[in-house]
């Protein structure tokens, strides 16, 4: 089935005087993995809830699988919320059974790694295993569109890789996936990105589109701790990457002055900025206004 799976057209949502989502338009096509980025409070969860039909829009329209997001259309949707939506006091097998019956699908088999723990209560399972069970439950009815809210938060590298395997596998089979994440590394695994800030969609597209015109300067020095302190004290948007210091949207000349005044020797080099730096700059702009 081709056609747009999820669509928002100039969607706005207000809660009293507060605008949570402001004139956002986006879509998710079959076979693509779209990453939704943004600070907490940026409006990501509110947007998702409107796309799923759990929350009404104040203005604009949403489409789920070409129609209104009602129960019929949600049958073809797989959703894993941040809280996983599993019953802690049921076993893994029982959870899968329940969800299969609810969607009228076949019961998914547990992978070999979990099969031995099928009768363990979900709340006794480690987080990575819980997430796997939640995934299985959401995928059992072969949904055409998947919405995942921070699917890998708190999970270790190996389990994260395994979960992304599943996600990409679904996309390869033609499903469309909308993912929110705070791991910038995962943002790089998406086909397309959407960046929200303060309810607005400030950028979309590839990683380069998201980074936009943000610049960065890398500061390499022996006393990284002192350099960090000096730049921080001067109010520069400083970040650490590895052991190198990076400053976003900065003028190398000004930085050099600050460092020299603090008696620190360092080399400054303009480098390509990262998504995090864009978000840091956005956050500063928001708090300054």
């Amino acid at each position, binding site marked *: 089935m081709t056609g747009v799976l999820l669509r928002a057209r100039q969607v706005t949502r207000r809660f009293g005087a507060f605008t949570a989502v402001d004139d956002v338009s986006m879509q998710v096509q079959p076979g693509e993995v779209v990453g939704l980025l943004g600070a*907490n409070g940026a409006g990501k969860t509110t947007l998702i809830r409107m796309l799923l039909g759990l929350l009404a829009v104040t203005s604009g329209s949403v489409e789920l699988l070409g129609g209104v997001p009602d129960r019929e259309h949600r049958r073809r949707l797989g959703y894993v919320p941040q*809280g996983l939506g599993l*019953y802690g006091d*049921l076993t893994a097998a*029982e959870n899968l059974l*329940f969800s299969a019956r*609810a969607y009228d699908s076949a019961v998914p088999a547990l992978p070999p790694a979990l099969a031995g723990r099928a009768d363990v209560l979900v709340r006794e399972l480690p*987080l990575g295993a819980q997430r796997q069970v939640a995934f299985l439950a959401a995928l059992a009815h072969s949904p055409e569109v998947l919405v995942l809210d921070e699917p890998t*938060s*708190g999970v270790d590298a190996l389990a994260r890789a395994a979960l992304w395997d599943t996600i990409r596998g679904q996309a390869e089979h033609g499903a469309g996936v909308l993912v929110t994440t705070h791991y910038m590394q995962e943002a790089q695994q998406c086909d397309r990105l959407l960046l929200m800030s303060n309810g607005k969609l400030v950028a979309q597209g590839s990683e380069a589109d998201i980074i936009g015109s943000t610049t960065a300067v890398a500061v390499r020095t022996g006393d990284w701790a002192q350099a960090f302190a000096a730049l921080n004290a001067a109010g520069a948007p400083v970040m650490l990457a590895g052991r190198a210091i990076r400053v976003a949207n900065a003028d190398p000349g000004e930085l050099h002055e600050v460092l020299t005044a603090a008696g620190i020797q360092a080399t400054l080099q303009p480098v390509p900025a990262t998504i995090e730096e864009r978000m840091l700059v956005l956050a500063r702009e928001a708090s300054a206004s």
Partner: protein
Amino acid sequence: MIVKEFRELVRDRRTLGLLVMMPLLLLVIFGYAANFYVSSLKTAVVGPQASQVAAQLPPFFNVTVTQPSGTKADAETLLQDNKVDVAFVSGQTPVLALVNGSNLFAAQSAVAALNKAGNKVQTQVLYNPDLKTSWVMVPAIIGLILTFIGTIITSIGMVREREAGTLEQLAVMPIKPSQVILGKIAPYFLVAAVDMVIVTVLGIVLFGVPFNGNPFAFALGAAIFLFVTLGLGVFISTVSQTAGQAIQTAFFFLLPQILLSGMIFPLEAMAAGVRWIGYLLPLTYFTMISQGIMLRGAPITSLWLPFVVLTVMALVVFTGATLRFRRDLAPGRPASPAHKQPAAAESVSTA
């Protein structure tokens, strides 16, 4: 959906226990304990020819005290100390029968029996002359309110820390477990005390319930009783993981006290097999104190038994609760493995 709910129910042992045990408990209680009819009354006979008078009394009046040299004042003291339900004063015609109005059902049975004797006996009901139910209930309800606040609300208050995950932080700070407990129950102590004063005043004003005794003794009894119920609240919180569980457990402690403490059904009328439960309940003893002081103006010495029992209960419960609480707060055997909260949900975390 049905299958899932059944599965969850089976695993939720506390709810299951409540659903199964509660009907059984109610059946047993109503079967054996619910009895408004008192079968025999503790009686005293005071005055000249006491033994002869005693011998003439029907077996309904179980004579436990005879004082040939006693006077009417002695008879009143016996009643005030709640040693007997009825005291006959001989040596005049008609014989004077003083009835202890603070034991409502006993008094009602006594009056009914004495009325059959016609004008051989002059009946006088002390402490609750009109045999009003409210006069007997209000002192008991004061105790019930203290139990309610103490047990249910304290247990929720403590469990809140556990649910919010902040218990761990308290454990690592230089604050002693006893300080945490005291800090946590102090507000409830105050609230309960204020509540008690309001209910007592309202009882007196609205229902005309007397307050014949020493208010300081009453306050002391209430304070000790509060400690028992607050201690129970703390204890319940140490065995509960969620507020829901805490409320269920507290309810389990509360219901027997309502039914078996003598508040509704008189203790003397219960079958012996069930009556002993009543003697284990703190509310039973506080009701003795509150009824004694408010209705009979009883001196604290005559109430030594409930005071001592409550003090012992307070010590036992508090020690047990503090020890369990210390286990949660301080290192020792780890109480449970550290398990991660599923999904780093922002402001709400579940244990």
